[in-house]
């Protein structure tokens, strides 16, 4: 690949970041990516969250995905799991809602009531 050199440059820049990301996490965000989530635009939500994490410079926030949670009408859904706390599930999380949840809950620990679906498992 002719662009390998460019990619290597990027890698040098982000290597430390990548290595740190494999360690322990403070907040885990789980995005539901079943058929229902995909149809409702969960990939856009996931991408927005990934961008926000990158912008924040935090390496202790991670994103993972899961399948359909069984509440398809609430999609896109995300679960915010702060270490040592009860997980919080949000419904109808479009990109704008994702920004609010990221800034208030993920960064500052404040639950966003507007989009709250349920607390606990």
């Amino acid at each position, binding site marked *: 690949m002719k*662009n*390998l050199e*460019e*990619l*290597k440059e*990027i*890698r040098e*820049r*982000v*290597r430390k*970041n*990548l290595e740190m*990301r*494999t360690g322990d996490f403070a907040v885990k965000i789980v*995005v539901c*990516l*079943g*058929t*229902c989530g*995909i*149809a409702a635009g969960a*990939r856009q939500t*996931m*991408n927005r969250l*990934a*961008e926000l*994490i*990158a912008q924040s410079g935090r390496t202790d926030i991670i*994103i*993972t*995905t899961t*399948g*359909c949670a*069984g509440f398809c009408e609430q999609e896109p859904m995300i679960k915010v799991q702060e270490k040592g706390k009860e997980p919080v599930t949000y419904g109808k999380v479009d990109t704008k809602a994702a920004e609010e949840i990221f800034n208030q809950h993920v960064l500052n620990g404040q639950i966003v009531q507007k989009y709250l679906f349920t607390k606990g498992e």
Partner: protein
Amino acid sequence: MKTIADHLFDILENSVNANANKIIVKLSYYNKIFSAQIIDNGVGTDLINITDPFVTSKKTRKVGLGLPLLKSTAEATGGFLKITPLKEKPGTCVEFKIDMSHIDARPFGDIPAVFTDALLSWPELNLEVIIIKSKKEKKILDTVKLKKELKIYNLSDIEILNYLKEEMRRELNEIGIDQQFGTI
């Protein structure tokens, strides 16, 4: 599903759910016919009517909509959806064809983002993307090779993913696959 990209991602998700750790995607676009072949090494399914919405291998509920939706999307344009188990080893091949000139065709959507989203969602997944260009196969993504050459185990950094996405976008545009209904 609004776009073909959504359907493609949904199939990748099926594969990962079937414990696949390697997926090969082949895309071609010629004479307004889009075809895709997705080959995985997952456990597959022995269900016969898997494109029936009331047939599913899920234990949690009795409906599965991904494949039936794709079937109707493809067939609405005169295309098809075919699911075949691999002969020798475990794995499944999903194949579909869509006539993009048909009035009922869905737009492509962001096809390159499907693959980078997959890498973001499942960092352990080995993914190969191949396009057919001038009747020849051209690999536009090979995560095994990339990880080896870059000496990293994880490609799910947003800067790397964006770079790979734009690379793939350029290649896909060259064979006419854009966000809408194709240019060739």
